[in-house]
């Protein structure tokens, strides 16, 4: 136990009874509360996600520039349906966020967003199955490889977002957590809308780069 004290891993600075008296002011409200810090963290987190997709996009551009065997594949129409679903989910999430502002009823809109998000992921899975079934393997053409790569990476991120949405939907309203329910929903919204924008970007790239 003494060792662990010495290692400073037990709470309380019992090692040294002499505490230098510092002129300190009592607690005051910090400039950013828990909601603010969570939002800051979420905004900052968008940067590395953007860099990851940018890395893939630059690989796409380089490979397309080389030409050889590029052959675009025809995307299943389902992909467009899924896109509409995702765009709608951003819309419903916005409604949820607005509703939660004054502690209002957001559960319905949150539920709809979750449903739409789940539908998007399910729809993407079906679209991949359709393509695999049609013989488009991962390595058939480089365009195809990038399609799977970009949509797959997006889906993984969105799945994470879906989990966060579920957690936010279940968030307590009574202030027992540091982060407020409204704050949790706002954080999800920043991330989710970003992933929608990324999706639009991916689709645009896939269309322009045919």
């Amino acid at each position, binding site marked *: 136990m003494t*060792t*662990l*004290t*010495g*290692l*400073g*891993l*037990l*709470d*309380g*600075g019992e*090692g*040294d009874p*002499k*505490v*230098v*008296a*510092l*002129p*300190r*002011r*009592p*607690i*005051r*409200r*910090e*400039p*950013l509360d*828990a909601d*603010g*810090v969570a939002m*800051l*963290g979420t905004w*900052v*987190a968008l*940067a*590395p*996600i953007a*860099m*990851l997709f*940018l*890395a*893939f996009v*630059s*690989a796409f551009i*380089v*490979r397309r520039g*080389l*030409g*050889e*065997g*590029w052959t675009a594949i025809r995307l299943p129409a389902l992909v467009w349906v899924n896109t509409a679903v995702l765009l709608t989910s951003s819309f419903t999430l916005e409604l949820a966020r607005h509703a939660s502002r004054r502690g209002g009823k957001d559960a319905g809109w949150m539920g709809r967003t979750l449903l739409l998000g789940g539908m998007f992921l399910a729809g993407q899975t079906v679209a991949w199955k359709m393509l695999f079934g049609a013989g488009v*393997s*991962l*390595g058939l053409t*480089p365009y195809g*490889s990038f399609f799977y*790569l970009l949509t797959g*990476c997006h889906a993984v991120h969105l799945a994470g977002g879906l989990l966060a949405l579920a957690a936010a939907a279940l968030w307590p309203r009574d202030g027992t957590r*540091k982060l407020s329910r409204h704050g949790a929903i706002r954080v999800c919204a920043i991330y989710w809308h970003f992933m929608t924008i990324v999706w639009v970007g991916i689709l645009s790239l896939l269309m322009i780069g045919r």
Partner: protein
Amino acid sequence: MSVATQQKPPAHGHAPPEGFLWKYVFSKDHKVIGIQYYFLALVSVFMGMGMSLLIRLQLAYPDRMWPLLGKIFPKGMADGVLSPEFYLSMVTMHGTMMVFFVLTTAPQGGFGNYILPIQIGARDMAFPTLNMLSFWTTFAGFCALVAAFFVQGGAPLGGWTGYAPLSALGEIAGPGQGMGLNLWILSIALFCLASLLGALNFLATTLAMRAEGMSLMRMPLTVWAWFTTAVLSLLAFPVLLGGGVLLLMDRIGGTSFFVPSGLVVAGQPIDHHGGSVILWQHLFWFFGHPEVYIAIIPGMGAVSTILSTFARKPVFGYKAMVLAIFAIGGLGFFVWGHHMFISGMSPYTAVAFSLLTLTIGVPSAVKTFNWLGTLWGAKIRFTTPMLFALGFVSLFVTGGLTGIFLGQTSIDLWFHDTYFVVGHFHMIMGVAAIFGIFAATYFWFPKMFGRLMNEGLGKIHFMLTFIGVYAIFVPMHALGLAGHPRRYYDSSTYEYLRSANSLHMVITWAAFFTAAAQLLFLVNFFWSLWKGKRAGDNPWEATTLEWSIPSPPPFDNFGALEPVVHHGPFEFSVPGAAKDFVMQTDPPSAATGKH
């Protein structure tokens, strides 16, 4: 001078955790996490050092047999002879382990986590749970890397840079390029994720959780350094992660991102089409160059702080130092092509990269001037942390100046892929950055563990190591001048290298000597943990916030109250002040100087 006597419970009431698992294993306390990172780095550095000694043994005595080692490594050293695959796997794993699990772990994950929140007056990082996850993800990456030694085929042998197509082709390209390489990629991917989580914390904490009075321009240079390193990490690691994903897809998904058509390897045609070999290098080095600044910038921050503390003088040119850190970090994103002059990329692009590369010398020179400027007119106390900080300056000059050779396209025609490069990056990373870690260790050990390390042992450790590292790496530059290529298992057959080969002996002996000297550090470290003299709050008479709290700090760093900052970070020798240092939290009347 009014002392607040109100004792209010903290706004973010988090009681200390209960239970062994939550206190020491899955702790969310940035201090525990910092120590966990540090110990991970300590284990890694000794593993990496062991590997380097095997490498050196082979290079100095290529024809010798080592029966004892043959018993320890029956596969890699059958009959006591180091095989080429074992050698190359040592080279690869040594580099990977050192760059990631030592140089990117100890300065940022270790010291950054422990010290940053305290230095800005915060109770913990912004996202403690995320912090805990980031350590354990790093640990998982470490396990994946070590596992590569034990799978069939063994550890990969493509160098820490893992160039495609050698790394994309699988086992046909050589032993260790099968499962071993997959684990290597997994390890790096986990490391990328962990670093991103950590960097997020550093950024949010620095921006949002500074105590009252701790303006940005009153932050110690260590905080600026960790902050900038976090920004670099956020922008660079995702690109490595992306590259790793693409590589894995080429290896097991049948894609051809990096593998062109028409390859025939060991007589077998390869079924890949149209990939770009150089694309891997672009993605890797876009990360790889900022990575080396990630490795050194925290050390520069620590050295600035330590030099100032033991010179009893403010840092010379604080603002310029901050701007220089930004410049180095920012410019670092635009020079990655200097690793690729010979790669086949456009020679015009090469010229552009070369010109940009040489501009990084300017902020680096500014920092060196300012370190020297901090010493000018000083009152130097030669404690062990100070010795390592001074050693850092010497090494930074040596290592940095050799970069000027490598950054010129014409000269890189000669030096690319020779030992000059190996000498250069070891001098600046494998030594200067390590000296930053040593300086930080000796400096903050009393704070972290409440005990002093032994000064006598520390000084001897410094002397032997300082001399030893020069003895190892300067001759390596000579090998490069002679044109000795890198990653060679044996160079004794080449006529043009005849005179240079004697240098291998010098380097190997110096390496063993220096490695042995590190035992002094280990003994000092662990003995002091248990038996070191008790340290007070501020044994070094330093000024930043961590020295205003007990050693070791209480669970929530500052207790129930919050610090208020009235002074800049390096107010030493203020005329008119009672002592030769004014702490940041001293009342405003304590100094009549600036800030």
